[in-house]
């Protein structure tokens, strides 16, 4: 957007005057199909992060021969699908201008609860449902202290974070347990091969997991399907229902929303419940996928930070009033690709976090510039 020296400064974002040689409309006409697509993508709120994520993916596919393989896609899934689900929930709280720091702790404690319920003799699916209802209660308590008592959400959910992480250490005695119905069993079967015209039977090991485990996180694409389903449903709720409208209203102007008759407390509590439920769901999915439940508060806290990062990277404001669920999914995808790509590049394990940190800062700087370009496109 450099101005020609001596010209009165044009407002930033105004279309630059056409370069010499060719009337403006002719040039625009020539560029229009491609320009229109770019314009459409960039006009989306998630536009800039989509571009940056594609650039990062392109970089890794050029740098490594293994990035663009289906095997790597499967490796990538657990790096982003769980974060996408949790980020989808936390977006609803962040649009309100609040924060939920207890999602990592909810993620940590819920599979232990599921384990207790299942080992106490409850069937698996009811055990999952009861564990998720307990998560809703956690969200209700968070929402109660924020919306009714009036404690800042940062402090209220920090208290919940420590409480739940402590609780998971108490109930587990600090030792991991096996996730119910999620153990891999192996059977040997004989498969007939034809070798030099001779039929030979050779033993082959086949892994089995239960149908329950396959649905709740154990299947290869299980978490991806959950993530896509949760993201689609919650984006629809956010964009096309009163729930979403009131969420934005409360986050944008709490007093104004209340004056217009929006029940601010109800909206706040409801969103905290939603957020805690997504965290608990991911806790169960991950425990089933791993086959064990680990009492690891440090890991849970890292997940909390990555989830919030995914939401913010995806375009949700920490100050509230604006955010998208699809953006959070792409933010999670961005973090997953970065993590996975750096590993594929053979980055030394000790350097991984270091490079990951630098790459996040670099990519987000790029994001700001893409956003500026986007605003220019939007007005032009």
């Amino acid at each position, binding site marked *: 957007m450099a101005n020609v020296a001596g010209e009165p400064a044009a407002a930033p974002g105004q279309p630059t005057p056409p370069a010499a040689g060719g009337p403006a409309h002719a040039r625009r006409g020539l560029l229009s199909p491609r320009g229109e697509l770019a314009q459409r993508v960039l006009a989306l709120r998630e536009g800039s992060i989509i571009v940056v994520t594609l650039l990062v993916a392109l970089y890794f596919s050029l740098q490594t021969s293994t990035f663009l393989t289906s095997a790597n896609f499967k490796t990538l899934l657990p790096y982003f699908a769980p974060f996408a689900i949790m980020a989808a929930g936390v977006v609803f709280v962040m649009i309100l201008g609040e924060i939920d720091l207890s999602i990592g702790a909810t993620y940590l404690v819920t599979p232990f609860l599921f384990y207790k319920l299942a080992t106490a003799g409850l069937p698996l699916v009811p055990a999952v449902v009861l564990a998720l209802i307990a998560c809703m209660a956690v969200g209700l308590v968070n929402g109660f202290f924020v919306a009714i008592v009036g404690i800042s959400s940062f402090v209220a959910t920090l208290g919940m974070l420590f409480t739940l992480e402590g609780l998971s250490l108490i109930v587990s005695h600090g030792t991991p347990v096996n996730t119910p119905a999620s153990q891999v069993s192996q059977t040997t079967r004989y498969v007939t091969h034809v070798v030099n015209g001779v039929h030979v039977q050779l033993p082959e090991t086949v892994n089995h997991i239960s149908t329950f485990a396959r649905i709740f996180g154990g299947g290869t694409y299980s978490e991806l399907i959950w993530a896509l389903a949760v993201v689609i449903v919650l984006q629809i709720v956010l964009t096309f*229902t009163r729930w979403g409208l009131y969420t934005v209203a409360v986050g944008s*102007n709490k*007093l*104004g929303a209340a004056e217009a*008759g*929006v*029940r601010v407390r109800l909206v706040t509590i409801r969103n905290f419940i939603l957020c805690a439920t997504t965290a608990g769901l991911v806790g169960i999915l991950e425990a089933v996928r791993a086959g064990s439940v680990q009492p690891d508060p440090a890991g849970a806290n890292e997940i909390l930070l990555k989830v919030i990062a995914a939401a913010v990277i995806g375009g949700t404001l920490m100050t509230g009033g604006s955010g998208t669920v699809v953006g959070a999914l792409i933010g999670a995808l961005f973090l997953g690709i970065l993590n996975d790509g750096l590993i594929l590049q053979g980055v030394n394990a000790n350097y991984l976090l270091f490079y990951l940190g630098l790459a996040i800062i670099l990519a987000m700087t790029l994001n700001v510039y893409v956003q500026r370009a986007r605003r220019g496109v939007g007005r032009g």
Partner: protein
Amino acid sequence: MAEATIPRQASAPVSTAPDDVLRVEHVAKRFGPVTALRDVSLHLRKGEVLGLLGDNGAGKSTLIKIICGFQKQDSGRMFLHGRPYAPRSVDDARAGGIETVYQDLALIDELSVYHNLFLRREHVHRPLPFLANRRMKLAARQALDEIGINIPRIDVAVARLSGGQRQAIAVARTVNSQADILLLDEPLAAMGAKEGSMILDLVARLKHEGRVSILMILHNYVHVLEACDRVSMIENGVIALDKPTAETSVEELTEIVVNEYRRARQRAQGGGG
């Protein structure tokens, strides 16, 4: 206190009329040590435009917020169409046919013009919970055209509009409802002369149609005399004057305020010495 005689003086007979749509009787409200309303009684007749005057901090906005269900009075009663009226929420008041333009407009910056116009009265695709955005856009366009407010695009966020346009949308939101009582808290505050006169024309038109009754807070006495049938002035938390506009003048209204200043100064000097 020295002015202890004032409330007794005002709590004398509550003036009423047979066609009152709204009656407020002896309403008081305190915020901690601050007394916002000491003893306020007023009535609003059907089809009438009542101007509510008073100094800054006199309690005008508090009274509006009590009538519209946003706050609850400490004591006193209200009657709506002759029946006892005690709204527990803004929705309650709305169900009773009362809509409000707040001093702060209560607009949501991040939401579009039409979502703001229909906030809390959204159209949905029944029985599905999805917003009927197209229907709301059409209705919003129609409502704004009817009022004569020029908003070029109704799908932009209201954050991008000028102060006057925002105010116009807040007024349109109220007028566009089914309400028969409108409470307008300084509807001309952010407006230029042209937009302001448009709102005054709108009020005049509504008065002419006679369907709604309007309680309006204004600061400009010329506007008050032009737009209102009657004025009530709050002073020290009580109604100090209640007169048809035909029987008062800018001079009289100014005189009251000047006297109030004089008394306040004497009190301040007396307290200091």
